[in-house]
């Protein structure tokens, strides 16, 4: 996108910090997309650097490792090879930690930029609002991806040393599905951070929504079928509309050593994540475009 085309969307900016028109000739469409991605990736790099510098990830990782190792040292009836309870606890901690990292990191991005007033020079680079949001999304998603990689390597090592088996395909599927689910959560949080005033309210609301979907999403249709009309239609509509984050939770398959999911189904799930992440990201862009940043 030509940065100058984004000018009408800068209604909220004071006139003196509106982005300057690009001096060179208007780039071709491909060049525009390339520039947009480059801008977004530059912003994403800053977000990754931020996660790298903050202590959140380290604290959560150390806690996860500590709890897992302490539980792993417990002897149950002299059975040294008991592994599934340990996998269950470790995966639960990984899921909680990853959600905490994803939601809290994303929720503070826009409000922090606005509070520290770094948003104005950022938008004056010129970087469009859409590019800024895309960059923030990519940064948060890539950052939690890096965190997930570390978590799953730890999980694989712990699990492998106990069970003496390395089902790498299963772990790969679990990690990628988990990452795909976090893509939806990050996009949802980004949209929330544009709507809600403070990161704390975004955090709370997204946590409640995410936990609600993970716990009840799979069963909402059963609940709906037990209701009378018109409530049944309303609940069923909610069931179809909400992003089914629980689809990406394959912990039970990993814990109980079930075989990998068919790869076509796995691709379908990632496509589902992509669709919902795009919807939330588009919603965030739409909301941010209309929002006064000063």
């Amino acid at each position, binding site marked *: 996108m030509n940065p100058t085309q984004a000018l009408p969307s800068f209604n909220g900016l004071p006139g003196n910090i509106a982005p300057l028109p690009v001096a060179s000739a208007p780039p071709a469409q491909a060049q525009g997309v390339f520039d947009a991605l480059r801008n977004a990736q530059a912003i994403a790099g800053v977000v990754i650097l931020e996660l790298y510098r903050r202590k959140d990830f380290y604290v959560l990782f150390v806690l996860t490792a500590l709890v897992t190792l302490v539980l792993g040292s417990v002897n149950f009836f*002299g059975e040294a090879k008991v592994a599934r*309870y340990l996998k269950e606890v470790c995966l639960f901690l990984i899921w909680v930690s990853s959600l905490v990292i994803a939601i809290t990191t994303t929720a503070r991005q826009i409000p922090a930029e606005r509070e520290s007033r770094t948003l104005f020079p950022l938008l004056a680079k010129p970087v469009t609002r859409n590019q800024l949001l895309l960059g923030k999304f990519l940064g948060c998603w890539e950052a939690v991806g890096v965190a997930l990689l570390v978590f799953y390597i730890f999980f694989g090592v712990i699990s492998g040393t106990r069970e003496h088996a390395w089902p790498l395909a299963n772990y790969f599927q679990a990690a990628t599905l988990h990452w795909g689910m976090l893509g939806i959560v990050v996009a949802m949080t980004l949209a929330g951070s544009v709507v809600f005033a403070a990161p704390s309210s975004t955090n709370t609301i997204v946590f409640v929504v995410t936990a609600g979907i993970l716990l009840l999403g799979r069963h909402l249709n059963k609940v709906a079928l037990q209701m009378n009309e018109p409530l049944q239609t309303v609940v069923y509509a909610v069931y179809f509309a909400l992003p089914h984050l629980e689809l990406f939770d394959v912990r039970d398959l990993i814990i109980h*050593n*079930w075989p990998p999911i*068919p790869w076509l189904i796995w691709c379908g799930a990632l496509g589902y994540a992509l669709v919902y992440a795009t919807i939330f990201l588009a919603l965030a862009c739409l909301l941010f475009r209309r929002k006064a940043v000063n």
Partner: protein
Amino acid sequence: MTPQLILGAGLVSAIALSAALEPWHQSWAGSRTGSANILQVALGDARKLFAKQFFVQADVYLHAGFYPSMFDNKTDDESPRVSALNGGSPPASDGEHQEHDDLPDFLGKPKDWIDAFGRSFFPTKHLHVGDKPAAEEHHEGDGHDHAEDDPSAEGDNGAAREILPWLRVSATLDPEQPQTYLVAAYWLRKQLNKPEEAERFLREGLQSNPGHEEILFELGAIAAEHRHDLERARNLWELALKNWHAHQAGQPETNLLSGAQILGRLAKLEEQQGRRDRALVHLRELVTISPSKAAIQQWITELEAKPSAGK
């Protein structure tokens, strides 16, 4: 002056009340402060709820994650799901792994495309620890197909161990639940060949449930089958029978299965040792409570026809 007087009167009342209540609280049976168990102090009776949850978790592991949630079709009472741990009945003394239908196809047919698609991401096939899920099985969603148990496989016996941590935690939270000890002991001695660990755990259970007839019966089974100490087994079973009689006396619901198991094993033991008269005593009592009266009666007839070799 009035506020000071009111304050003074309130203070005196509070001190007087605390002086009166403190001795009562010290001797109150419901007080948590007397317990040395930190879980008892922290959770109170709520720990029993957690204990039950962990016991159910062991059952989830037994079925390799295939388990109904609170939203799925339920059976008509709560116990069958939990008792599925030991094949729908208390631990069978003869070690037979009973075929059971404890978890019917609670999923049913997919209700919509999300439901159908979502079944690829969690276990949807009824298996037990040791059954090997085939690569194409867990996403079929057609439910209830028992794979053949393969006890000779290394992984099979090993898989049974996975339920033990939850049973251990459950027993720690609620030591007064004898079923936890019985189930753990069953798997320890039958599947994992660890009678010593089973006996130790049962003795721990006996300390929390003094004289419990089913725990005594299981201890007797260990003595007979693993230690080959038949005298000890007889003593334990006779004590179990005595306690069973005592417990049944004032109970509105009788645990006939437990009594039948004790009497059956005692009768068999006495018959093996040639004590026909004592075996007949047990069998005549057994015939009154057993559902298979004809088989027991035939056993009695056969035994009566034999010449007595013992006392």
